């Protein structure tokens, strides 16, 4: 960083003649960066443009509902419920796995484990869906039966338990497995950035490993964990194929996690209905997509804000 020149990060002196190659190259990198901006704006603009006609759609295109909101609300409910279940399961698991990698496992094993978790992220979502519908769902049926028999007084497990395992809880589990790698990756990164001296100081005071983690690692990485969870939430909210394959589509509002009539999600509903949709029906689906986009955008935006703020604090 040479201070006296006019353009700080550009090391050649300011009075050097402007080379045509430099101008072109610089311009093209700026255009590329501009495309990112345009693309993101384009997503919002085109979805809005194609989604607006949905507000005037009639009952024929809204599956019998009178307004778009009445149509979208059960789907939104299903989306939020599935994502919430997924996070409830994935967060403790992911923090545990991240701790195992960063603070428990020997280095060699930790690298291997990190790679294996990355492999989980690389599996295509449609494969997760096939696995969830064919293996996980049927395997969970006895658990659902037990839950509805013994905990049936709770509205969550009211039942009747699904015979095929195509339930909200299965969808939540599959989403949890899909959100696990992203949360783990970020938590691992943050845990391993804990200042070495803090950890050693805690250990030197006689703390056990868990006390060290609680005193030195967690306070340092709290905001990082929050943002990791929110990024996982973003993934769980937008996941399509796994839910489309696992759940049979019902547009209902139901808290029942173990019955076969489960609320569908926005993304799954689009995937299931889009190929057959025509006319305003397409606009209705695009409008629900816009709702999903706004929610995930808000979630990701706030997560990144939290990360950015905590990074500013960490630099010191």
């Amino acid at each position: 960083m040479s201070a006296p020149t006019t353009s700080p990060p550009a090391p050649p002196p300011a009075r050097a003649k402007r080379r045509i190659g430099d101008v072109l190259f610089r311009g093209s990198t700026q255009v590329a960066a501009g495309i990112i901006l345009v693309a993101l704006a384009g997503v919002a603009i085109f979805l809005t443009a194609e989604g607006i006609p949905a507000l005037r759609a009639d009952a024929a295109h809204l599956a019998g509902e009178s307004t778009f909101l009445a149509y979208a609300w059960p789907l939104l409910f299903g989306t939020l419920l599935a994502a919430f279940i997924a996070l409830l399961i994935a967060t403790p698991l992911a923090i545990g796995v991240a701790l195992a990698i960063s603070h428990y496992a020997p280095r060699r094993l930790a690298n291997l484990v990190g790679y294996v978790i990355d492999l989980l992220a690389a599996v295509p979502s449609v494969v997760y869906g096939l696995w969830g519908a064919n293996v996980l769902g049927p395997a969970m049926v006895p658990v659902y039966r037990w839950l509805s028999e013994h905990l049936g007084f709770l509205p969550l497990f009211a039942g009747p338990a699904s015979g095929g395992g195509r339930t909200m809880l299965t969808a939540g589990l599959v989403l949890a497995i899909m959100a696990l790698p992203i949360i783990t990756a970020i938590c691992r990164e943050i845990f391993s950035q804990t200042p070495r001296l803090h950890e050693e100081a805690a250990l030197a005071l006689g703390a056990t490993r868990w006390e060290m983690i609680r005193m030195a690692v967690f306070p340092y990485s709290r905001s990082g964990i929050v943002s990791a969870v929110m990024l996982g939430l973003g993934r769980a909210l937008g996941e399509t194929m796994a839910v489309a394959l696992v759940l049979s589509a019902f547009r209902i509002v139901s808290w029942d996690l173990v019955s076969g009539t489960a609320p569908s999600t926005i993304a799954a509903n689009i995937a299931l209905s889009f190929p057959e949709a025509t006319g305003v029906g397409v606009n209705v689906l695009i409008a629900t997509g816009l709702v999903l986009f706004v929610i995930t955008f808000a979630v990701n935006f706030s997560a990144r804000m939290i990360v950015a703020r905590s990074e500013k604090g960490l630099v010191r």
Partner: protein
Amino acid sequence: MSPIRIRTKERPVSTDDRPQDPPANSASGRATVGTGPGQPVAAGPDTTGPDTTGPDATEPAAVAPAPDGPGGSGGRRAARGSAVRGEVSLRAPKLPRWAPLLTALVATAAGALLALTLGWGLIAFAVVSAAVYAVALPAWALVVENRRSAVDRLITTLVWSAFAIALVPLVSLTWTVVSKGAPAFSAEFFSYSMRNVVGEGGGIYHAIVGTLLITGMAAVLSIPIGLMTAIYLVEYGAGRRPARVINFLVDVMTGIPSIVAGLFAFALFSIFFGPGVRMGFGGSVALSVLMIPVVVRSCEEMLKLVPNELREASYALGVPQWRTIVKVVLPTAMAGIVTGVMLAIARVAGETAPLLVIAGSTDSVNMNLFAERMMTLPVFAYYSYMQPGVPPQFGVERAWGAALALILIVMSLNLLGRLLGRLFAPKTGR
């Protein structure tokens, strides 16, 4: 201040000498402490009024106990211990090193016994064994050691079991896909499309072609944009406001749901080509919306790793900035960039939802990205499973075969990317 002064007057030797003559003061401090009952009175004012006595005011208090004890810190602890309990014990009781192993054996045995007598399956056996272990080891530690150690052992168990639980789906998934998909593999499966196929037979040729074309086109669109954006962020923008905004937008773009990307491509193309548009190129656009942020991130990381000395050396030789970037920075970072790009391709190759929306599905081979529907592997797997046809078993079998083929493609791209990164690395490193 004044009450302290008054109290210190009682011991004129230790307080008044202190500011003027530190060596004498520390010696006198030790002497006073050594005398015993007067110690608390003297130490009190010293520590509460550090502004008058200066930094060495605490020193005598800290040093003081040392000459008291027989030797080092261990000796002091022993002395204190003997004062409290009347016996010399240097170490707290601790579980032997083999305690976890023994507990694991006992837990496994208990689980196996229960599973055999009650006829449980493998899963129940594993769960019961883990539960027995998670209860038994902390309980043992609680008896022999202390509560803190017991909690530590419990958490250690939980952390490792979280890891084990995370592995279960991966293993189960791999096993399921391989065992169900492998029987579908045959020469016909890879060389035939589904055109005019009812029931048995047919293949995924058209889907493989579609996946390769659409993903390839997405890579052609995303790699230049992603790489140039990364260059802008690292080489030109570095820390300035527009670059920070772009940086943030890239982060947000990472989180766009894949189905929304598909809807975006559909909305975009339906404005130009009318409603109900389906084309492979639209799928490429949707995939590049998902792929660009990944490419930007990985390229950016790699460009940041290039040492600044290399750039400065190049500038010192009078090389223009753009040639420096093209000839010095990019070749240095090439290994990492190739790896990152391959991982990004692997990621989007498995995307289903956007292609379902914009590329549609068909039974025939379509080599033209710019017209008509185009089948892809994930969409093929999805439709073969959801609409397997009459008799359903052939369609379901093809779905698993396509899933296995897809996993193989994605994983080999993944491995190839990491391998290329390794292969390129020695040329650039050190």
